[in-house]
């Protein structure tokens, strides 16, 4: 005769088997159950992420801690100035276009960059094998109510990660830029040296669901493997315009259109390797309470 534990196990396995083949209408219930299951696991997952962060610099090669700190500081400053330059470059580009059209716009009107208000969050969960999978952030505490769905999430090096898809009491879910649901996004090629009279080379990147983004562009556009692509999409908040979104990984010919080529790009901040992010709060953008 079967024991009660075995009967219970059989019943639970049967229920599990049924839940696996159910339509996705019950996904809300499953998501809530998953949230509950994650609660006791979160402290250890966070410890794991911090341990990962602590262990990774060991792979960076020789160099003392001070040298590494100095290098990081210099890199941060470089990235900050590069970002400011690119933001100004986009503004100047937009301004010059409007000036050409209206011949009356003062070019100083938009030259007042305000640093975005950011809320730093620690990544508590991510899929190490899937570049399109959502990442999970530590839930808000002191910033309760200041983040909301659609806020932009950036990595520590001012690289775009994605946008908040779900804001819950237990976790924040971020949808990365390479996710197929993120849709197309307009970017421009970053040039180290570029004259201001030449317009930006813009392209429309489309995520294909495998972790990469692609765009079909005119062959005459000067673009190379390794070029960085910055966000210039007007549907994204103005504060994040000019941040690096992707890096060109490959250029492929298109047989059906010999005058065009396909640009294959990968996210500049792969979700699998992100440890700490900042949420650019749109609430803060609206002004102090």
């Amino acid at each position, binding site marked *: 005769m079967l024991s009660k534990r*075995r009967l219970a196990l059989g019943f639970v396995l049967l229920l599990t088997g049924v839940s696996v083949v159910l339509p996705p209408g019950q996904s809300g219930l499953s998501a809530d159950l998953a949230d509950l299951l994650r609660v006791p696991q979160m402290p250890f997952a966070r410890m794991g992420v911090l341990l990962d962060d602590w262990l990774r610099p060991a792979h960076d090669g020789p160099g003392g801690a001070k040298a590494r700190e100095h290098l990081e500081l210099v890199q941060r400053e470089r990235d900050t100035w590069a970002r400011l330059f690119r933001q100004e470059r986009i503004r100047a580009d937009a301004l010059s276009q409007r000036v050409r059209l209206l011949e009356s716009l003062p070019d100083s009107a938009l030259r007042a960059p305000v640093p975005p208000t950011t809320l730093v969050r620690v990544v508590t969960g991510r899929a190490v094998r899937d570049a399109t999978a959502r990442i999970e952030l530590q839930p808000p505490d002191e910033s309760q109510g200041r983040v909301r769905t659609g806020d932009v999430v950036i990595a520590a090096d001012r690289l775009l990660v994605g946008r908040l898809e779900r804001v819950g009491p237990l976790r924040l879910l971020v949808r990365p830029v390479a996710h197929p649901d993120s849709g197309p996004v307009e970017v421009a090629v970053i040039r180290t040296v570029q004259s201001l009279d030449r317009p930006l080379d813009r392209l429309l990147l489309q995520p294909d669901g495998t972790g990469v983004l692609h765009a079909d562009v005119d062959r005459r556009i000067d673009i190379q493997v390794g070029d960085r692509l910055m966000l210039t999409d007007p549907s994204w908040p103005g504060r994040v315009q000019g941040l690096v979104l992707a890096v060109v990984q490959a250029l492929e010919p298109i047989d059906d259109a010999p005058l065009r080529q396909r640009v294959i790009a990968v996210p500049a901040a792969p979700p699998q390797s992100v440890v700490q992010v900042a949420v650019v709060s749109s609430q803060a953008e609206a002004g102090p309470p």
Partner: protein
Amino acid sequence: MRWIIFVPVLLVFAGLDAGVGGLFSISWLGGAAPSLVAVLVAFVALQASATSALWAGWWAGLLLDAAPGSGGGGTAVVVLGPAALGMTAAAWFVLLCRGMLFRSRAVTLIVVAGVVAASAALAVASIRTLRFWLPWTEAAIPQPASDVLLRLCGDAVATSLLAILVGWALLLTSRRWRFETSPGRLDYAGRRGG
């Protein structure tokens, strides 16, 4: 088996898997990564009673299902079940084989940990493929079989390597888990007595 030991160890192992798994992933093997949870399930399946081993596999898989991105293909739908069934199937497979094995040897645990990782990954891939073919589930397109097989082998090798250290440590603590009630010898004695 003492569940009061199993549950904290499972939570720690699942958390570490989610956190540091990326550090040890092997990119040229399709992103294969070692799994501490698979080592734990292998250890329990080798030592505990059959029912406890299957329950342990189910709970371990359920935690893996709840992890972010576990749906595969970047899907937002959380499906609790594939890994739970996969780990239970892996534990059941070990139960079938363990009568022929030297259960308390480290080498056995190292090999079985790899087998558990591979069996669970195979079961999960099969369930995801089944979901893809069911018209009402709107499941993500499964990965190509060659990629799955490559990653499955990579998972097995990486988990076995990890089990060299972790499995040895678990075996050192096996007395504290109170596996003495394992049914193998007791059932045999009971049958002789009856």
